[in-house]
């Protein structure tokens, strides 16, 4: 398709890009999809090797070339950060995710209305100065059919109706839950005794061999059942039980004959014409030579950092895009947020847990302290997070988890680790972060990647609402551990760096206060779409994957309907 005009150019083929490619090629559109990294075989990403994937992510091919700069204030130069999300290979970080597949709750889309305008924040006694809380332009009902399609095409295991705080659903989960593990049993029993509402968290991991039935996409190949090897979070799945687009959507897209996949190609900027429409992309081919691909529609699905970077790098075109492409609002890169990575640890003298067995996403959770599900009066914060059991991991993942009263080396450490490696788990919180304009992503003025492009630079800190929420949730986790019979309990508050990053190209109805509309379409450049967690106006107390997948299905449907764009 070189030299000709593609119907659609997709930049980044992970969870979102894979779904978009399948949907659009199936609708007959000619798609050219760019992936920065290679197409790996299962044996090349699923060695389940703790040195490569836990200790040395900076050496992974999909990580090492594009670190980001991280700093907690504008006065610091910042440090290089390497993380397995984003993972720049075909299939993206979805190859290495845990598989937590929860939908957001209905209230997660209306934080401004429900919690600010309603006066709840005042009753909570929270000072929201500096925060920029808004509603989503779409709601849970808009996404419900697409959540369902995601669950049935990717094979989500769970128990519908078990979580009293979940939004309504038309269909149950396609698969029964994964096997119960020790940590699920201990957490669930204790939470129940405390009067909470434990439920089995939905997991995009096959509890049985699975192939989507009609009316879902029956072209998706069958996947075998999970073998409970315990290598989920940060690892590739050697049996393909953990859902990824690499083994579902991407092969189907290729079969249509309408997808041209260009791996090892790095998109450098988006081109535009004198009417301000996107005309395609410029990219470095595998030999590092700059090439151009023209397209009628351009879609960015390359994660938060790359979205911001590409838009800022695509500035110019006379005066039109002098602040960056799609940035008339000045909000590209602003309101960056995520979760605090927060854990409470517990040791058990009277119970063997064997946390290295199981499926990472097989967890018992409670939503009693998530979102707006509890009374915040006088608490000094709004929102919350899901609370659940976790704690999978080979010894390399666990070797730095040491109680505060134990020295981290020597005989005492050795005795501790020998006794408790099999007798511990974590309670993991997903405290959400409210958006602020001073938490942001921009371009580093000095440091560049291997293609000579400026690295993305993050400036981020937690503020009063988050800090109070962290302490509150720590107390909940510690209470559950004590009830479960843990002999020692301690908390690790989040480091000042959010996980599950979101924001930077906010979605909204007003072009002055948002970058894209409810269909992930740029307000300024109507044939440019930005899809992924970067469009979230606010976070939820859940991970993003189910929601970005639902947004991808919904955006694809919207693009398919614009028949006049494609003649």
């Amino acid at each position, binding site marked *: 398709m070189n030299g000709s005009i593609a119907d659609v150019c997709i930049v980044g083929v992970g969870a979102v890009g894979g779904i978009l490619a399948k949907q659009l090629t199936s609708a007959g559109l000619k798609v050219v999809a760019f992936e920065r990294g290679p197409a790996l075989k299962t044996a090349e990403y699923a060695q389940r*090797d*703790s*040195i490569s994937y836990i200790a040395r992510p900076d050496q992974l091919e999909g990580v090492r070339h594009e670190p980001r700069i991280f700093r907690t204030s504008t006065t610091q130069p910042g440090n290089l950060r390497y993380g397995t999300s984003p993972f720049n290979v075909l299939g993206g970080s979805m190859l290495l995710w845990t598989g937590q597949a929860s939908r957001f709750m209905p209230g997660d889309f209306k934080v401004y209305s429900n919690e600010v305008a309603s006066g709840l924040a005042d009753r909570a006694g929270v000072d929201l100065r500096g925060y920029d809380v808004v509603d989503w332009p779409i709601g849970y009902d808009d996404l419900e059919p697409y959540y369902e399609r995601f669950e049935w095409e990717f094979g989500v295991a769970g128990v519908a109706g078990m979580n009293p705080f979940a939004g309504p659903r038309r269909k149950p989960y396609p698969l029964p839950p994964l096997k119960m593990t*020790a940590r699920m049993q201990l957490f669930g029993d204790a939470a129940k005794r405390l009067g909470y509402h434990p439920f089995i968290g939905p997991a995009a991991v096959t509890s049985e061999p699975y192939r989507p039935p009609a009316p879902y996409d029956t072209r998706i190949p069958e996947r075998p059942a*999970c073998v409970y090897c315990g290598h989920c979070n940060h690892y590739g799945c050697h049996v393909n039980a953990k859902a990824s687009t690499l083994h579902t959507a991407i092969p189907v897209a290729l079969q249509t004959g309408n997808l041209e996949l260009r791996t090892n190609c790095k998109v450098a900027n988006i081109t535009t014409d004198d009417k301000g429409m996107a005309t395609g992309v410029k990219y470095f081919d595998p030999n590092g030579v700059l090439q151009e691909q023209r397209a009628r529609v351009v879609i960015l699905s390359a994660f938060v950092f790359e979205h911001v970077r590409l838009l800022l790098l695509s500035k110019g075109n006379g005066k039109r895009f002098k602040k960056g492409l799609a940035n008339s609002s000045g909000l590209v890169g602003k309101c960056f947020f995520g979760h605090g990575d927060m854990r409470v640890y517990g040791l058990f003298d009277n119970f063997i847990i*064997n946390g290295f067995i199981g499926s990472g996403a097989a967890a018992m959770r409670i939503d009693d302290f998530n979102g707006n599900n509890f009374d915040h009066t006088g608490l000094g914060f709004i929102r919350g997070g899901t609370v659940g059991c976790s704690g999978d991991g080979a010894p*390399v993942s666990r070797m730095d988890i040491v109680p505060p009263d134990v020295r981290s080396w*020597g005989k005492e450490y050795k005795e501790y680790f020998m006794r408790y490696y*099999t007798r511990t788990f974590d309670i993991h919180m997903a405290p959400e972060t409210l958006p602020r304009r001073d938490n942001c992503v921009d371009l580093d003025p000095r440091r560049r990647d291997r293609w000579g492009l400026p690295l993305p630079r993050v400036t981020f800190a937690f503020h009063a609402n988050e800090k109070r929420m962290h302490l509150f949730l720590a107390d909940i986790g510690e209470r559950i551990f004590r009830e479960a019979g843990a002999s020692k309990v301690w908390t690790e508050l989040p480091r000042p760096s959010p996980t599950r990053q979101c924001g930077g190209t906010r979605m909204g109805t007003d072009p002055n206060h948002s970058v894209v509309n409810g269909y992930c379409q740029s307000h300024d450049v109507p044939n440019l779409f930005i899809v992924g967690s970067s469009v979230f106006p606010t976070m939820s107390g859940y991970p993003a994957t189910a929601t970005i997948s639902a947004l991808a299905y919904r955006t694809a449907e919207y693009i398919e309907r614009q028949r006049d764009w494609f003649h």
Partner: protein
Amino acid sequence: MKMKSQSSRQYRGERLQALTVRQARFIDAIAGRILPATDAPGAVEAGAVFYIDRALAGPYPHLLSRYTRGLRALDKHAKRQFGASFEKLGDEQQDSALGDLESGKIAELPNGEAFFELLRTHVLEGVFGEPSYGGNKDMIGWKLVGFPGQQWGYPETYINKAVDLPPITWEGLPKKPGQS
């Protein structure tokens, strides 16, 4: 710089790729305090030093100068505090010198805390990581804590029950049909 002959790089029956024999011996002395042998073997027996040697010869050559500088400062500190090289000190004195490194009290080494953290992390990775990276000999580290290694999967979830499977590496797994 003169090339060293191959025999001069032999240490505990293996050829060192980045470290000198003297450095390897020094690191072993430290490893023996970070995870000492007790009734059960420790970091020396697990061959953590060979993990570090391969890491410095492979992906982390830029850390070799940090090791060289850090070890030299630690040795100097040992001589000043206790009148002998680190390797010649008793367990308690070695722990005391390492404790000074950990708390950043070695004057010649700014940011000594970070070097201690690097040492500790590398030694423990060398005990608990996959054996293909040079350490965790005979899966000593995995046996210490009761980790059955890179099992293909588990037939059950072993709730409140010890796992009775011998540990296994990825390379040791029988090939399954359909594995690409």
